[in-house]
């Protein structure tokens, strides 16, 4: 049994932390055509409140596609996906966007900070671009929350700077603050440690765990880094939880 398989096997037995499923997917089927056609089928997948879940699998197996489906970025052709109690698979695009910006915080591999905004405005980005129905208002409370998060992760002194004037670690912290400032139910981190050395990866993970725990959020993290899997409550090996189809 490989390291990955043992980690998955072990973590798959870990008791769930909360009784309520933040994400529930059943009989989900998604495909796209073209030269590199691809299908993904997930019979059943639940992620519960407060869980820290790692999603692993070989490159191109559909990890990013799956988290995009769960977050409502993509819509499945069949099946149901519930996010925070809302049937996102049946929601309109606008409804899904409003739900996503309100209940999902995202951390990307390259952080994807907007170069022309200060660190503070990057943290508050969701408030700047949220659709009206999302109910996110850029008020004093939001700014105070952003300040508090920044202070907690130690970047309060660089909030006025643009991303180009931030170190890699500071950019990473800004991205984490941006994901948490809306007080999301679910934080999706898509390989945030992918480009980092082991020490930085561990520090990032510490930060994510700590901040999601304090925020009471569920963490779903896509990763290739097997060395950190034992820190998660559960590890989902995508080829095992889904049927993946690719052209021969």
């Amino acid at each position, binding site marked *: 049994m490989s390291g990955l398989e043992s980690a998955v096997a072990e973590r798959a037995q870990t008791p769930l932390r909360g009784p309520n499923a933040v994400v529930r997917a059943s009989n989900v089927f998604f495909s796209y055509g073209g030269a590199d056609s691809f299908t993904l089928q997930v019979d059943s997948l639940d992620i519960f409140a407060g869980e820290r879940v790692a999603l692993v699998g070989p490159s191109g197996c559909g990890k990013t596609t799956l988290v*995009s489906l769960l*977050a*409502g*970025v993509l819509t499945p052709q069949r099946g149901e996906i519930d996010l925070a109690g809302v049937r996102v698979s049946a929601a309109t*695009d*606008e409804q*899904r*966007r*409003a*739900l*996503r*910006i*309100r209940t*999902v915080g*995202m951390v*990307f591999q390259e952080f*994807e900070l*907007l*170069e*022309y*905004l200060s660190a503070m*405005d990057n943290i508050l*980005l*969701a*408030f*700047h*671009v*949220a*659709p*009206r129905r*999302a109910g996110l208002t*850029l008020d004093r409370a939001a700014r105070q929350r952003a300040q508090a998060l920044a202070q907690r992760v130690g970047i309060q002194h660089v909030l006025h700077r*643009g991303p180009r004037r931030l170190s890699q670690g500071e950019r990473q912290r800004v991205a984490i603050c941006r994901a948490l400032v809306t007080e999301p139910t679910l934080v999706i981190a898509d390989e945030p440690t992918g480009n980092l050395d082991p020490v930085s990866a561990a520090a990032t993970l510490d930060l994510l765990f700590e901040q999601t725990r304090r925020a009471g959020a569920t963490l779903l993290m896509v990763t290739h880094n097997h060395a950190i899997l034992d820190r998660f409550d559960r590890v989902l090996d995508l080829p095992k939880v889904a049927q993946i189809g690719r052209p021969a």
Partner: protein
Amino acid sequence: MRGVPLLALRHLVHQRWASTIIVLCLTITLLLPAVAHVLTSSYEASLTSRAAATPLIAGSKGNRFDLTLSVLYFRKSGVEPVRMSDVEAIQAQNFGLAIPMHVAFTARGLPVVATTPEYFEHRNLRAARGELPVIMGEVALGARAARDLGVAPGDFVFSDQRELYQIAAAPALKMRVVGVLAPTDTPDDDAIFSDLRTAWVLEGLVHGHEDPKKLRPELVLGGTDSHTVLSEAMIEYNEITPENVGTFHVHGTSSELPVSAIMVVPANEKASTLIKAQVNASKTMQMVVPSDVVSDLIAFVFRIKALFDALAVLLAVTTALLTALVVALSLRLRAREIQTLHRIGCGRWTVFRLCAVELMAIGLVSCLLAAAGVAGAVASLSALPRML
């Protein structure tokens, strides 16, 4: 500021050089045709109104544009002068008023317009300060000329010397300013008006000097009982004063004295037709209708303007295409940013609004700059008569 406007503004500031270049391109595209339109419209209005206020112009045969512009805008023309006898001949027909005009000289760079009091009456010119010139050597300045030269009634202006190296030529004349005309926003504001005889003094055809009997003997070369021949070494008066005005005299007959052109104000339509026919029948003179000449001139100008309009359209299309290209490339460069915005859940139209607000801001700034440029062009229109 918050939301999409904040993002749009920050992005424009972040891309300040690209934004500035696009703004400048759009500004120039908007400004050029607008200014051309304003200038040509004003040019047309100015020419037309001036021409309409000048019924007929008589002068020597030659370039009718030159003749017309010499009377309307006091430009020196290459058209030969006519004689006072021609003025008297037209006047004798009793078809209307004949106003002689002499515009061959300048003083401190401004045209010296020598004419008769009827000119002021016809143009409705009145003295805002002082009085109108009625005596040789007196001048009244147009409002802008007086302001630019900084002179007032009681001051003096010297005529410009035409022949710097001909010491026998008439010297520069010291002319006394007796009045400043009220502003009219016409070329009259930029002119120096004098009595007709002053121009002949400037020509050297009328001059004044000491009584030959009192001159030093070496300055008297000879003579008869009725004529005295004087040496060119004798210095003529270069200022006409109450004391020496009586010594000024003309050699020859007054009817042969030159004038540049004759402004004719016919009594009625019939008189206009008759006087035109009579003058145009002459071998040496022509009568032009300024409004017709100006119409031809404007038609020529507008043919050129049509070319500029076509170029402006080409420029606008080119700028629009380049702007579209820049926007398309910008969207391509911002693909990751746009994808990030979609993934975090920003509204469907937010990205569209973001780009639209940026384009609108660029367009707005360009329009404001172009409007400022047009306002500047309009403000400089007061100089238009001078440009003509």
